């Protein structure tokens, strides 16, 4: 699975996710990536893209929950990401990346590693795999 989240200079957020799914999956199987609110979500507050155990991401409506806890609990972006990764996955393993309309970027994962890269207008840039 691959994904990208962006907030542009006008504060507009967007998210996109694309995948081949699981190796040896049944034909006809649909995972989290195409499901809006599960693998992909964007609103005026943030943009989110998820990857990992599709069934766990779907059951946890993971990407929408990041936006929801920002909206209803007033959490900041990284707090919202940490909360959702810790509280919404049950025993599932997943990771996600997110941006906020304020130009912040965040990510979180509860399994061994996630291929990710992030950058902001003020010059921050990071590419990583492990914790």
């Amino acid at each position, binding site marked *: *699975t*691959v*994904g*990208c989240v*962006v*907030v*542009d200079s*006008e*504060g*507009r*957020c967007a*998210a996109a996710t694309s*995948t*081949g*799914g*699981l*190796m*040896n*999956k*049944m*034909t*006809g*199987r*649909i*995972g989290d990536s*195409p499901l*809006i609110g599960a693998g*992909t979500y*964007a*609103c*005026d507050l943030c*943009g989110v893209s998820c*990857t990992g*155990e599709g*069934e766990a991401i779907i059951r946890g409506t993971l990407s929408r929950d990041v936006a929801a806890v920002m909206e209803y609990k007033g959490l900041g972006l990284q707090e919202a990401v940490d909360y959702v990764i810790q509280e919404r996955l049950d025993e*599932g*393993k*997943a*990771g*996600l*990346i997110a*941006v906020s*309309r*304020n*130009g912040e*970027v*965040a990510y979180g994962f509860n*399994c*061994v*590693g*996630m*291929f*990710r*890269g*992030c*950058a*902001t*207008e*003020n010059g921050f840039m990071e590419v990583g*795999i492990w914790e």
Partner: protein
Amino acid sequence: MGGWAIAVHGGAGVDPNLPHERQEEAKQLLTRCLNLGISALRSSLSAIDVVELVVRELESDPLFNSGRGSALTGKGTVEMEASIMDGSGRRCGAVSGLTMVKNPVSLARLVMDKSPHSYLAFSGAEEFGRQQGLEMVDNSYFITEDNVEMLKLAKEANTIMYDYRIPTVGLDTCSAVVESPLQMNGLPISVYAPE
């Protein structure tokens, strides 16, 4: 306004024994995609155009599990899916079950922009892609030697597992098929191997 920001991912759940050169390859691809997105943002492209542009680049490289290099079904074929969402107005588009569309994220974008729906799948989605003039390729374009090998191992292990690595059995990571009593939806959790 806080300025622009961008993040990309290539999948979660990485085999801790991933060879160093593969790790470097992955970092180079992620860096290339970040730089592609950054120069687009500096040219004032909108967020929705940038996410599509970057995911197309990731789909075209066989390294990660999407587009070319996608994981294989139990029948050795590729069935791809993608979605895109624009925070302005919360518009969205999604596709599933694609076998010939070269860049699934662009079909998801067309579903969002050019169709009355938000999700099209299988033959209907491919038909719409053809009507919209999207580039179509043979399913074999998406299949790589690595993944044929991976599928063989998945079948021998009789499990559904990682899309791009051969877990070393017995390794206690989420890449290995760890026999766990835990169930999800009535199935052993190991069936839901991370993508």
